């Protein structure tokens, strides 16, 4: 995998402002003395799915709500579909779709009543029957929305958000609370709109979701984008290519192998590992070493490429000064 020479920055991208549906620079927002968003830069390109990642309280929802014209910003430049969201024009609102983080409740109305209602507010809505199919609620069309399960309510919510067939979609943790099958359906929905040329800004805590859907990901920590780039190369500039590991057999000393790879670490269980920027060459030398010492089969020999999760956790840890494990717990709990 090629490693880019320079870190991906939020601003690295195509063309002038006019092309990109979302352009943010120097965005700031405080709640009292607390800076929730602090000099944030972000650019979303037309037609892409951009995943917004970051620990709880990082400022993702605040940022997204400012872009929706929903919260006022304290400073910075923001352009969404060529307009300042603070102006909040009706014609502009018709072009964006919003699925907020908290699920909406639509008492007393049936599922199709709710969708018929919301589609009536847009100039060029998707047909109700189509929306129902897209979110897998066709069988529940005539059921009261209040009797839907939590996951079904979330799906209705997503349908409400995209009822106007938006050109730019904000999805704030759209699949939290959905069962695995429903999550896949929601993913298909995102792909469906991407296929229509829509641009999507997706906030999520599920890294597999980002991996499956997003073209690029931006990691927000402490109200600032600390990393932004193609999902499969996230954090590429700061990491080595792979981790090589194996287990020492009983009584064996690591000193001879340490002479070859001075950066390696050995844990209490005899697990030897190091990060390698040139794994092919390292493996060759390791195998030669094993041959030389007549070790036969090397126990538990592994070459592991870092997953998106590894990279994400590393990035977050780097910028919060916390060990990755603590963050992992935070991410999983949410």
């Amino acid at each position, binding site marked *: 995998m090629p490693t880019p020479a320079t870190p991906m920055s939020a601003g690295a991208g195509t063309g002038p402002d006019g092309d990109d549906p979302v352009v943010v620079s120097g965005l700031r927002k405080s709640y009292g003395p607390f800076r929730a968003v602090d000099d944030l830069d972000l650019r979303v390109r*037309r*037609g*892409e799915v951009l995943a917004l990642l970051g620990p709880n309280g990082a400022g993702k929802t605040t940022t997204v*709500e400012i872009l*929706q*014209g*929903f*919260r006022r910003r304290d400073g910075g430049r923001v352009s969404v579909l060529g307009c300042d969201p603070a102006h909040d024009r*009706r*014609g502009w*609102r*018709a*072009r*964006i779709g*919003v699925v*907020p*983080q*908290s*699920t*909406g*409740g*639509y*008492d*007393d*109305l049936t599922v199709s*009543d709710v969708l018929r*209602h*919301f589609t*009536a*507010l*847009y*100039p*060029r809505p998707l047909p109700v029957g189509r929306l129902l*199919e*897209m979110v897998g609620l066709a069988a529940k069309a005539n059921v*009261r929305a209040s009797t839907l399960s939590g996951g079904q309510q979330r799906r209705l919510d997503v349908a*409400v*958000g995209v009822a*106007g067939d938006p*050109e730019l979609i904000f999805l704030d943790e759209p699949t939290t609370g959905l069962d695995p099958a429903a999550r896949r359906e929601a993913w*298909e929905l995102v*792909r*469906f709109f*991407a*296929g*229509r*040329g*829509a641009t999507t800004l997706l906030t999520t805590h599920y890294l597999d979701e980002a991996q499956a859907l997003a*073209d690029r990901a931006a990691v927000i920590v402490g109200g600032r984008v600390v990393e932004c780039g193609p999902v499969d190369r996230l954090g590429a500039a700061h990491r080595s290519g792979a981790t090589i590991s194996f287990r020492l057999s009983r009584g064996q000393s690591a000193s001879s192998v340490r002479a070859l790879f001075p950066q390696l670490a050995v844990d209490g269980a005899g697990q030897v590992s190091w990060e390698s920027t040139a794994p092919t060459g390292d493996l060759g030398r390791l195998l030669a070493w094993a041959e030389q010492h007549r070790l036969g089969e090397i126990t538990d020999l592994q070459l592991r490429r870092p997953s998106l999760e590894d990279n994400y956790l590393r990035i977050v840890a780097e910028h919060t000064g916390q060990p990755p494990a603590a963050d992992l717990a935070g991410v999983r709990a949410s």
Partner: protein
Amino acid sequence: MTSSTQPRLLPADFSMRGRSAESGRSAATPPVRPPGLLRTTLARSRVELLAVFRSRQSLVFTMLFPVLMLVILGSIFSGTVQGTNVEFRQVFIAGVLAAGVMSVAFSGLAMNIAVERDRGLIRRLGVSPMPRAAYFLGKLVRVAVTTLLETLVLLAIAVLAFHLPLPADAQHYLTLAWVLPLGTTACALLAVAYSSLIPHAGAAAAIVTPPFIALQFISGVFFPFGQLPSWMQTVAAFFPLKWLAQGFRYVFLPVGFQRVEPAGNWELGHIALVLGIWAVAMLVVSLLTFRWKSTRVH
């Protein structure tokens, strides 16, 4: 893959995960004007009325309270009002009609808005291209229908059970025809403005009910207004309920009763003026303070 065809079926779309502006419909189509105030108000009104008639709980809760008051207190109260030959029960009926309007248009609506804000409905409407006035107009339609219903139910009970004489001439009906809608509008806009003080739906009843009950006591619903202490009359005169009740007394009581009104006459002009001022003022306050975003839920 050609860029001119729009994907229509889900499975087919996955192959064309188009990335450029050309492959989507967004760049090709000119902007269209979102539906205007009339269409969106109709859409809002439709769901408002669907919700009213499907949710018996809220309909019954807001409508039942004045009905119970009328039936119970109407059966207890007896005698005539001092200085007149008008039965106090009739005076009370006029008061309950006014309280009924306020119960539905103010209490009911303020709580309804608080719930809708909690459920995230208001914020979802706020990010849609709907003209924001459509939400308020939809509420007015909701409240117009429910107060009319409430008034008819109360009147039916009053006539059938308590032999309330209905007015005989057009003059009184004409007055009813502006007092009722004007009072409803003033109370409804008061509810919209007041809803900003409700932090979350759970607190709605506690914030809405006490002032409403206090107003009923000082506005001449339970006692003849002319017999209340004058400071109480003065305080009540700043609020819409007193004027609404006075309007209903004009409509349903004999002409002679105006002798015991504090002003010595019905003050129809003042009724229109005060209710009108409340409506306009609350409209302005609502437009300035209405919260389209919900309070944080997590």
